[in-house]
């Protein structure tokens, strides 16, 4: 689960990381009030969970409350990569001297939390990694020992911070690390970490991604989920325990198992189709869940064919068949559907579908080709 910039920074601040004074506004008038309280120049920043807000015009500087109000008026309601801006963060502007990067992730290869710092802050760190990897300094944290001060010193020296700032930097690293560990994050990032003209460090932008599997022990963090940032379909899928990602193609896919779902998308593409989504109904799905999944797929107006690929193990093919018919019974559709069922109770499943006059296939290759043909025919 991704957190908004203002949420991430508030968490960082709880761990002693210095952040700009500021507040969230949902109307231009509120933005004016916040800017008035802060005084001086402020940054008005759209709060949406996508990258590249700046380039899209979603971040503006304002020199007065009136300017802040105007900027908020332009930003609120903006569509940035499909996300409608409903909140802005109004922050006191930093007295920017230098921009650093500081971040940490769960490093799969090392099986450690890895802390990264760079003197190239304020830009996309992945570009830095691609262009000048030597400008990213890394230290791996032993899970038993935690982040140690000498490691933060290695980072501070690596990004060229003068000695006077090592202690500040160490405290920020430690705070970010504690925030990371105690929130069960998979990523925590300050970009830019600004060195101000007076030498003080300030976390001007913040980003945090939490481990969904650990949210059960952080009800306070789970409550931060911004429902506006999910599409209604994504929300329905999540609440039904389905794993769903919308894509740009025309062939809806419903599969049990993440690997098989990806493979089904891949083979669809191989035969010239384009998958409209990733959708994993998981193991042992009952008819209700299957029906919910099908409704989600059919909500997408671009879908002009649906491919079901079920390899029954714990999942029973007859339950899947019943779920399909249930959804179609509630909301009939003309979208052609190809079903491939193998495994537990596949004979019963196929018999149920035969009555409904759906196309069935023996192998995944056949099924994919039939779905692609149906989609092309419908287009």
């Amino acid at each position: 689960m991704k957190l908004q910039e203002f949420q991430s920074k508030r968490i960082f601040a709880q761990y002693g990381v210095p952040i700009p004074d500021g507040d969230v506004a949902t109307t231009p008038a509120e933005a004016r009030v916040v800017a008035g309280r802060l005084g001086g120049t402020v940054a008005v920043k759209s709060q949406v969970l996508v990258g590249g807000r700046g380039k899209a015009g979603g971040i503006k500087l304002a020199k007065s409350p009136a300017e802040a109000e105007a900027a908020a008026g332009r930003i609120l309601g903006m569509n940035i990569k499909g996300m409608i801006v409903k909140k802005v963060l109004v922050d006191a502007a930093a007295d920017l001297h230098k921009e650093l990067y500081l971040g940490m992730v769960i490093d799969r290869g090392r099986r450690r939390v890895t802390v990264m710092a760079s003197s190239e802050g304020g830009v996309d760190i992945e570009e830095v990694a691609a262009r000048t990897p030597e400008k990213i300094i890394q230290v791996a944290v032993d899970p038993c020992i935690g982040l140690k001060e000498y490691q933060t010193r290695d980072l501070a020296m690596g990004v060229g911070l003068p000695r006077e700032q090592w202690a500040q930097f160490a405290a920020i690293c430690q705070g970010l690390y504690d925030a990371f560990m105690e929130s069960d994050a998979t990523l925590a990032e300050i970009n830019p970490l600004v060195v101000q003209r007076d030498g003080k460090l300030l976390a001007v932008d913040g980003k945090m991604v939490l481990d969904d599997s650990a949210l059960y022990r952080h009800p306070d963090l789970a409550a931060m989920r911004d429902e506006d940032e999910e599409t209604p379909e994504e929300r329905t899928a999540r609440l039904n325990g389905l794993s769903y990602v919308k894509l740009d193609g025309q062939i809806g896919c419903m599969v049990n198992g993440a690997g098989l779902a990806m493979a089904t998308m891949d083979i669809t593409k191989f035969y010239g189709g384009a998958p409209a989504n990733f959708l994993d109904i998981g193991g042992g799905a009952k008819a209700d869940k299957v029906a919910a999944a099908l409704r989600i797929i059919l909500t997408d107006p671009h879908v002009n064919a649906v491919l079901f690929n079920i390899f029954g193990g714990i999942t029973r093919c007859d339950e899947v068949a019943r779920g399909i018919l249930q959804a179609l019974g509630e909301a009939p559709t003309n979208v052609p559907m190809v079903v491939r069922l193998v495994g537990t109770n596949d004979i019963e499943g196929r018999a149920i579908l035969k009555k409904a006059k759906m196309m069935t296939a023996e192998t995944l290759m056949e099924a994919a080709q039939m779905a692609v043909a149906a989609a092309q025919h419908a287009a």
Partner: protein
Amino acid sequence: MSILVNKETRVVVQGITGREGAFHTEQMIEYGTNVVAGVTPGKGGGWAVRNVPIFDTVREAVDATGADTSIIYVPARFAPDAILEAADAGVGLIVCITEGIPALDMLKVRAYLDRVGVRLIGPNCPGLITPGETKVGIMPGHIHTRGSVGVVSRSGTLTYEVVYALTVRGIGQSTAVGIGGDPINGTDFVDVLRMFEHDPETRQVVMIGEIGGTDEEKAADFIAQHMTKPVTAFVAGQTAPPGKRMGHAGAIISGGKGTAADKMAALTGAGVRVARHPGEIAEMVAALA
């Protein structure tokens, strides 16, 4: 021969009285697995499905029954504890089916297991099977057939799909191992490839990867340097967009790394036959058999 498990394997089921634990215990026993004990704290002294004796702790189960392998079906919030309990009780192999264990928990658990030298398969995996001998997992047993192809995979149902296609063509498997879809797990491709390389029965290997991480790239390095047996691979997620988690916690392209294209290129470079879609795998294996 086979790797990791065979008909001598003595299995203890942690979480045997749960819905999943009970169901799969029956399935395993039906397949021929030697399930010698179950563990559910607070229910020791009773009997689970098929008259498997229940113990309160893994240590008691091991002491009383000589169990050497544990399979774990307990819910995610109790699973790290269950893994550590099994490791401390002296089993040599732990198979954790449970999905949704927090990554930071697994970081600590894996560090501990490395220290004490106990092997974990999973978590979030279907387990493993040596066809005709024993099944320590949740895969449908009947789709497997005994033979000389070693299978190792990060996915569940996609593995079944591939195994089924092999079986349909009359190609049997030595052992099929699901290593799981989580970012931090107990066993990676290289571990299993090494075992297959040393297993006399295994004559060739199928490896099923997916997007995310660099496990497939490491496997490619290992294959290039150490494998004499042919490997056929498939990498799921060629159509997956960056930044989106494709079901598995580990299946996410992040920071431009972990794409299927990169992995396929690395494997091809290591001399691995790489299938373009899952339907090709069995054909490619058959061509070598």
